[in-house]
């Protein structure tokens, strides 16, 4: 659905639900996911409704994903790093004690 309007060269990879995706380091993670064709970022905790980014500026909290084990990270507010592991959320996060 989305395509980059300039510089589409990729220089790193991230893992999304176990699938390796070539992308651009430093880009907002939400944009990287949209460019990779991810349209449902999560399913809500209460009703299971599908959600995707709405505001892309840190306000709506609809783009929450799990990043390197940390749940409910706003994908629009973090930048892509090489080797980042992303999981799309199904329902609420589980509680877990800090390591």
């Amino acid at each position, binding site marked *: 659905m989305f395509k980059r309007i300039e510089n589409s060269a990729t220089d790193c990879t991230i893992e999304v639900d176990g699938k390796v995706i070539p992308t651009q380091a430093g880009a907002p993670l939400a944009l990287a996911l949209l460019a990779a064709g991810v349209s449902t970022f999560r399913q809500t905790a*209460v009703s299971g409704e599908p959600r995707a980014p709405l505001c892309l500026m840190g306000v709506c909290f609809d783009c929450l994903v799990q990043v390197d084990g940390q749940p409910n990270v706003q994908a629009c507010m973090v930048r892509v790093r090489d080797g980042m592991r992303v999981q799309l959320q199904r329902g609420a996060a589980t*509680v877990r*004690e800090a390591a």
Partner: protein
Amino acid sequence: MATSEFDTVVIGAGAVGSAVAYGLCRAGERVCLLDEGDIAYRASRGNFGLVWVQGKGVGNPDYARWTRASANRWPGFADELATVTGVDVALSQAGGFAICVDEQELQAKADAFESIRRDMGGDYPYEVLTTTQLRTQIPAAGSAVAGAVFCPMDGHVSPLKLLRALFDGVQRQGGQLRTGSSIKRIEPRPDGGFLIHAGTSPIASAKVVLAAGLGNRDLAPQVGLYAPVKPIRGQLLVTERLQSFLRYPTTNVRQTDEGSVQIGPSYEDVGFDDHTTLTEIARMAARALRCFPCLSTANIVRTWGALRVMSPDNFPIYQASSQHPGAFVVTCHSGITLAAQHAGPIAEWIHRGPQPTEIAKFSSERFHVQKD
């Protein structure tokens, strides 16, 4: 008495006023429920949602019994709300825990419970648990605590869904809900009944119920009543939604039906200041972590302060005006726990009397220096 548009105007559409209004509508009265609006302090939107029996009524068995009667009435009340409105208020009464972080705290709790049990003639179920016993019941509980008291009479509910159900129930049963209705004045009419000055034109009614929380202090004298209530602030934190890990409510941490975790409480005598403070937020978070170490990675999404409505002895005030018959004041701290009583026996009393014998001790006459 002059004709009135309404049988009863209820001033205050929080948990207390809405429950009374709901009960009056059910009894067939023409009811107008007045809500001040978002400028009100709105304790009913800021509370912790407990339907709580344990520890209530130390030195006051009437209050212990009244609270327990409401908890007993709650399952039927919740079912009725679901039937009338379709709203499930998420009531769960599987029992509740007071987790104590040191021996002194646990001993103080055990002593208080023992005194209530004595006052109740032995009929007051609770158990004092060691940390090991606590962790058998609640695996997520931490090991660095002293133990807990468990009381099978306790529970919790969604206070916001309760309000929604009550508003809906009032209106489905023919009552009117008017928001943005600040009260300018209550005028007792010479031939009986009242004119409520709110908004553009006064509202005429045969009876008036003051359920305006902290606003009752100023409204009560206008109809010959006395309600010396004052605010005690409570602060709360709420986490992101989490998978269910805590089935039971505790005095400082509970997980809502939708997964959020509420963390509280504070008790602060700071007047009408409903802000939050870092000191209290940090203290409550630290205690919650000690009770539930698994919360260490949870994100806090919101914190807030709200004002409890406290009478001088912390017990409810239920009073009919002798000077202006038809005027009542209903105010208390525990508007959620007592909602079932307010929609039941309190509404029946206001509808057609007589005063329930159980509330004789809750009249505001107890605060007068000189009693008759």
